[in-house]
Structures are given as structure tokens and as C-alpha cells.
């Protein structure tokens, strides 16, 4: 069966579509384990108490 990316061509406006990629989530069964903590970490980031993982090195 046709994959999503091929189907999207029919609906997505060319420029934004070509700037995007569609990828599966990486955390899989660990998603729930990270979801709650991520809420807190992002909130701490918003008030300047935590740097994003790619900002602190």
C-alpha cells in the first residue's frame, strides 16, 4: 500500500511540504516515562532554570 509520504504530495502545498520530513517517534514504549518529566523540564526551561539538551554544551 502507498506510504504516507507519497500520499501527502496530493494534499500538501509544495514549498512547506518539501521543507518537512515525517518521521516516527523515537521513544516508543518509553514515551509515557518521559512525558510527565518533560512537562516539568520544559516549564523550568521557560523560566530560565534549565537549558535545552542541545544548548548546554
Amino acid at each position, binding site marked *: *500500500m*502507498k506510504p*504516507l509520504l507519497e*500520499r*501527502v504530495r*496530493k*494534499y*500538501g*502545498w509544495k514549498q*512547506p*511540504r518539501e*521543507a*518537512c*520530513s*515525517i*518521521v*516516527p*517517534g*523515537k*521513544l516508543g514504549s*518509553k*514515551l*509515557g*516515562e*518521559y*512525558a*510527565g*518529566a*518533560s*512537562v*516539568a*523540564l*520544559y*516549564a*523550568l526551561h*521557560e523560566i530560565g532554570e*534549565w537549558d*535545552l*539538551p*542541545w544548548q*548546554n*554544551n
Partner: protein
Amino acid sequence: MAKPFPILGFDVGGTKVAVSLVLSDGTLVASSRVPNKEREPDDVLPAMVSAGKSLLADAGIPREELKAVGVCTPSPLDFKRGIVMAPPNMKMWKHVPIRDFLAEEFGVRAFFDNDANASGLAEWLFGSGVGVQDMLYLTMSTGIGAGVIANGHLLRGATCDAGEVGHMILDANGPLCNCGLRGCWEAFSGGRAIAQRMQRELADKPNSTIVKLAGSLENIDMKTLSDAVLANDPYACAVWDGMMERNAQSSPSAPSPSSAATSS
């Protein structure tokens, strides 16, 4: 680099609560689960607290080192006041001030959001979205929702519903949705809607592949559908094809991301 600090996370779902101890560098130290199927919050909340305290104790982390608590629940919720409103699959949770309860129990700040935003943040911070400035996280489960990262920030919108993409209307004359409107994305592609559609269409077809795989009409779900697709059942393939076409129609209409992460 500063020493990583510990955070307790609670992901409250309709069947269970995932409780986890995570360090700020992304290390998942330990996790456990608290059952939440048809249980009263008066029973579940204390169990969540003791599960969190056990994780800290087992890891040898004194309570005063805990930096904060994060919690997410299904919508609808009152984001500003930290209250769960009564999600469709958690009917016993009516107006529960979960954020402040956890803050008080653990003696730290607690932060709260809906589950789609929380999952989007998790994939952004530690998963497939690491380092990007713009992304749309799509969750395709019983319902359809999204977490939107725009210009390096979580997009909430005026009523904190920015990620509710499941109710974008694809066809105003389409099937009736849970929300009362017709032709929402979720009414075409949501797990519950598809299961209900198959149960309706196969009601008088006990010998169909899907009914046989499920064992009974009531047991038909998305897993049955994907099993039947893998077995090349023509009806299942047609349902799947229609669902994928609606997903393709909707995905580019949701806020334009420069990198999108999806999960199922």
C-alpha cells in the same frame, strides 16, 4: 556542565499512571505503574505519591534534592489552575486539582499539561525532534491530537487547545464525531471511530477475517485491523487505505512544521 537534577514524572492515562524518575540530562533512572482503570482519584492519587516516593528512596535520592514534579493527563483540563476536568476515559476524575496536590505532597513545584503536549515535548527534548525549532508531534491512538513546537516554544493558543487537530473538519458531510460535528479527522481515522465503523459494517458478517481474528464483534480494534491488513484481507486493506488517505489529507493542514514526528 551543571550536575543533573532529579524530576518525578506522572503520565496519567485511562488504564494506568506511568510514574518515573528522570534526571535533567535525560537519564531514565526508574519507573513504575499505578493502575487507573475505573478507579477513584481518591485511591489513585495517594498510590501515585507513594510510587514516586519509593522511586526516590530506591535510587537513594533524598527528597530535598527533588527539583520538581511534572504531570500530564488527557484533555479536557484547566491548564492555568492545574485541574483535570473529566476526560471521556477517566470518568471518575471530575475537577481534580492534581497539580497542586502533587506540589503539596512532594513539597516542590509541580507543572501540568495535556498528554499530547507532554508527549510532543518528550519527543522534542529526548526523541526524534531533538534540536529542531519547529515540529508537529502527532498522536494517533483512540483519538488524534498533536503537540506543536513553533520557533522553539510549545504552542498553546488562547485556550491551550492549539494541538487539538483531531477535530479539523475534512468533510462537513462526513461521519459524526464524538465532539458533535461531522467529518472531523478523528471521525475518519481515530482508533475508536474506526473500530466502531468496522463493528457496524461487519455486524452481519461473522465469517469475515476481522471478526474471526477478533474472536467477537466487540473485540474488534486497531490491532485486529492491522493484523487483517498483514493477512491481505481486502476489506481491511480498503479500510486502512481510506484511513491513510485521510491522514495524508490532514497532516499538511495541521500547523506547518519544518520537521514532524509522528507516533502510533
